[in-house]
């Protein structure tokens, strides 16, 4: 009984933080969004979905967030698997992969603008080697934003998956090997299924982060066109048209989509294997 009370007490700081920084703003925003400048309760929402240009921001954002997240997973899963055991230079490699996290999005965008730009090193090299006739356009479009999002989110995905793979009992792989499983079968039949919970979590985190993209979509993309993301639409409503209520409505829509995807992924995860990743007593 007493211990329960101490447990509750220990929960309080986290609970307060969530209430103050998440629940309160959410309900505040929700209320604000339902008080439009003119018209009925849901005017902001009907306006958003009624306007093709506004509606399209959802698709624009998904077109950035999904590829960036999938690219990250596709790169991080084999890499994490490869680095599950101590290998030479492991710290250096891990450090290099994690470095982008320490740079801000803006710094990253600046660097990319000059590196991937029409006169940047990347295109100069391609032209010099004769791989391409003319500079490839990698910035000021969706590609640039996807690249930047991938670089920025990769460390999170990689570290999360590395933790998951290292938690898998190495004797499981040896057992599979003794039973005749080659390298691919060991990965596909044993490691990958045991990584699914980690992959789902990494997907959810990366997706939520990339779905809220704003700076790199503006700096590296085409903010008037194909990379007009939903966060930008909200920003424009609130700070260009000074319609806080409409801005709040768009933010709520954005949160709704994120929650929907999170629910789908985590719901799907709970239907798959979720038990321990070891094969018996340690």
């Amino acid at each position, binding site marked *: 009984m007493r211990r329960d009370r101490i447990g509750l007490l220990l929960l309080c700081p986290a609970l307060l933080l969530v209430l103050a920084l998440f629940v309160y703003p959410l309900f505040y925003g929700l209320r604000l969004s339902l008080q439009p400048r003119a018209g009925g309760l849901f005017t902001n929402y009907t306006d958003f979905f009624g306007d093709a240009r506004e509606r399209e921001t959802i698709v624009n954002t998904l077109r950035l967030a999904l590829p960036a997240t999938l690219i990250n997973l596709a790169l991080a899963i084999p890499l994490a698997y490869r680095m599950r055991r101590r290998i030479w230079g492991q710290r250096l490699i891990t450090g290099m992969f994690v470095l982008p996290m320490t740079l801000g999005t803006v710094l990253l965008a600046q660097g990319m603008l000059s590196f991937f730009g029409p006169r940047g090193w990347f295109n100069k090299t391609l032209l010099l080697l004769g791989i391409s006739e003319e500079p490839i356009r990698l910035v000021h479009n969706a590609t640039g934003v996807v690249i930047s999002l991938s670089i920025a989110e990769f460390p999170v995905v990689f570290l999360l998956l590395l933790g998951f793979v290292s938690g898998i009992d190495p004797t499981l792989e040896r057992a599979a090997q*003794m*039973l*005749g499983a080659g390298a691919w079968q060991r990965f596909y039949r044993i490691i990958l299924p045991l990584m699914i919970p980690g992959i789902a979590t990494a997907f959810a985190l990366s997706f939520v982060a990339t779905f809220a993209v704003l700076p790199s979509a503006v700096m590296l993309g085409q903010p008037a066109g194909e990379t007009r993301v939903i966060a930008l639409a909200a920003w424009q409503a609130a700070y260009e048209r000074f319609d806080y209520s409409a801005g709040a409505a768009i933010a709520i829509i954005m949160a709704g989509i994120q929650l929907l995807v999170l629910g789908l992924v985590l719901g799907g995860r709970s239907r798959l294997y979720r038990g321990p990743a070891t*094969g018996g007593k340690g």
Partner: protein
Amino acid sequence: MQAKHAGAATRETVTIERPAPRIERLRIRNLTKRFGDLAALRNFDLDVQGGEFISLLGPSGCGKTTALNCLAGLLEPDDGEIELDGASVARTPPERRRFGMVFQNYALFPHLTVGRNVAFGLEMQRAPRAQIGERVDRVLGLVRLLDQRDKYPAQLSGGQQQRIAIARAIVTEPRLMLMDEPLSNLDAKLRIEMRTEIRRIHRALGLTTIYVTHDQEEALSLSDRVVLMQQGLIRQVGTPREVYIEPASAYAASFLGARNLLPVRVVAATGDGQEIQIETESGVPLAGAARSAFALGDSAIAAIRPEHVVLLAEGRGGDNTIPGRVETVEFVGNSIEVSVRSKLTGEVIARTEDLWREGETVALCLPRERLLVFPADDSGEMI
């Protein structure tokens, strides 16, 4: 009438034959593995007959697991040859050796049901689906866990998990069965049950088995032959009876239960197998059985099992008998362990059925044919 019937039934059940082994012989030569400066395994030579059950016995760090992993192919030996029926497998990757292995922590795949775990090896061999189901059921029946087929490993007890691990290893009919301390995670009662189970399965299938353990009882009760190891070297190979009754060294004697070891000096030159006169550090003259040839003045180790030490009432005398005092008395169930302090170095432990009282004076007798005398040169590597 009824008695006759029962007799016939018994006769039927005793005629159990071991099935023909899948290999004729396994030949291991000069297997060597170093980890940095540490020679974990040195010049390991062993010939195994098909169907034999061999234990690698020794304390942790003696190289037994290294030897097993080299055999499995999970470790690459620095040197040496492994031949199965004349064909080298030393360069074959583990997944193509067609060996079965049972791990200390069972290593069941946690995301697969019991049935899928057992089927895994057959699926890797691309066995026909119908055959897989049939063979999985048969082997689950053999380990008496057919009713657990659709459960997940985490839902089973430790003993059940280990039986599944064994089932998974034997279902593919491996050429060689490797077992790495499979019982060490189980409690005492279960360990004895599983020992019988392993023996039964070995009898039923005749699988050539290499079994790693640090438990002398396990090694003695299961094996056709025991390989006693120490610091990466083989110290003795023999049937359980041979290594137990005729240990080749003080190390072998002490590992196989001769807990009383006395440093002594040889008083007269003696041939191997003869009666030998020795003297302890404290000057007590004793007679023992020489397990090697000795010269006058050699230092030696005299070893005797607790169950061979005889305790007599105070004042009773005879050969190899000295007065002593009972220090501690421990009741261990089937017998009583008494430790006796005397002029000999350290306390001598005796296993008796008589009740002695702590502090009592006794006559401590070390029967000369039971007091085995070994050269002292390996005493520095004593466990």
